[in-house]
């Protein structure tokens, strides 16, 4: 075997190995994610309708032309980082501030209510924003937040944590998507994004 053909073989084998490894991390046996990359600033926020904990249908576009929306995606009731973030977010908005605030996870109503009770147990007030269930993770997929690490597992559909600020016209004005689930934007960061809309 000549040096050139040997080198070509090595490159080919390495390429195949890398492609296989990538597939192993990204494949989804049940359903391919609808969107590979997260929705980013300047894009129109994908519309959705989800049920809140009282059984009401909540539609994102219902706020169009009326108020901006803060949209939070969190990993689940079992995630301590998320619980602390959601606790802190109770103080994000001022009283009667005309901003809609929605938080989404794959958790069912029972688990979400348990988390809300745990958050409120510190005596600093109940969850004062709307919690929504996306058990089929369709909205999480539509926002490109699907975490492939949980594909085919019991918790398939868990999102990478994200916070979006969506302006009155339904466009994403600010976004923070974290692949490191230990990192969350501070309330001050989100507050600054809201202030910049005015």
């Amino acid at each position, binding site marked *: 075997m000549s040096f050139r053909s*040997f080198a070509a073989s*090595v490159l080919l084998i*390495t390429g195949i190995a*890398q492609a296989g490894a990538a597939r192993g*991390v990204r494949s989804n046996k049940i359903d391919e994610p609808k969107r590979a990359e997260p929705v980013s600033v300047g894009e129109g926020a994908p519309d959705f309708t989800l049920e809140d904990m009282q059984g009401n249908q909540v539609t994102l576009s219902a706020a169009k032309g009326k108020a901006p929306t803060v949209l939070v995606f969190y990993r*689940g009731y*079992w995630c*301590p980082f998320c619980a602390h973030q959601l606790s802190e977010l109770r103080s994000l908005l001022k009283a009667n501030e005309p901003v809609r605030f929605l938080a989404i996870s794959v958790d069912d109503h029972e688990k979400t209510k348990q988390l809300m009770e*745990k958050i409120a147990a510190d005596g600093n007030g109940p969850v004062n924003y709307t919690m929504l269930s996306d058990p089929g993770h369709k909205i999480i997929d539509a926002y490109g937040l699907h975490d492939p690490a949980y594909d085919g597992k019991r918790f398939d559909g868990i999102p990478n944590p994200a916070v979006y600020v969506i302006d009155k016209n339904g466009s994403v004005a600010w976004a923070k998507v974290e692949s490191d689930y*230990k990192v969350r934007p501070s309330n001050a960061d989100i507050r600054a994004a809201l202030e910049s809309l005015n």
Partner: protein
Amino acid sequence: MYRTLLLLISLTLLLAFSIAPSGAARAQTTPPKINVKLVLAGQRVQKGRAVNASLIIEIPSGYHVNAHDPFSRFALPTKVDVEVPGGIKVGPITYPKAIVRKFSFSGDRLGVYENRAVIRFIIMVPPNQPRGNAEIKARLNYQSCSNEVCFPPMKREVTASLAIS
């Protein structure tokens, strides 16, 4: 010879770089392999007697499982449910004492189990219980964490057979 050596080194480096990112990703998201087994003090018991049972949880080094009382309201506690055939009674479930630790992912101190945790309970067989084999089923709910991150909760079911004579 020199070219071959150079190629082998390059190949090793390329493979190392292609494998490392997926390995790191797995380390962050894959829960530890935790062994759970149900051990009875005896495999045979007479009617009207009791037998001690232990649910043994073996936790790899570098990981922990939240204790039954993990102190923090956001940490999901370890819980065991025991299912036995009709007539047989299960005594109170005794959880081991928690080890208190502080981790980067929580502002609170946490009560955890490390290495090996043994949850104990007693199975009481009434005098009028029919002879035969009884299946003892224990369902364990737990949440494991590393020193940096917690994983989604898990459910495990283990069984043991008890011969009633």
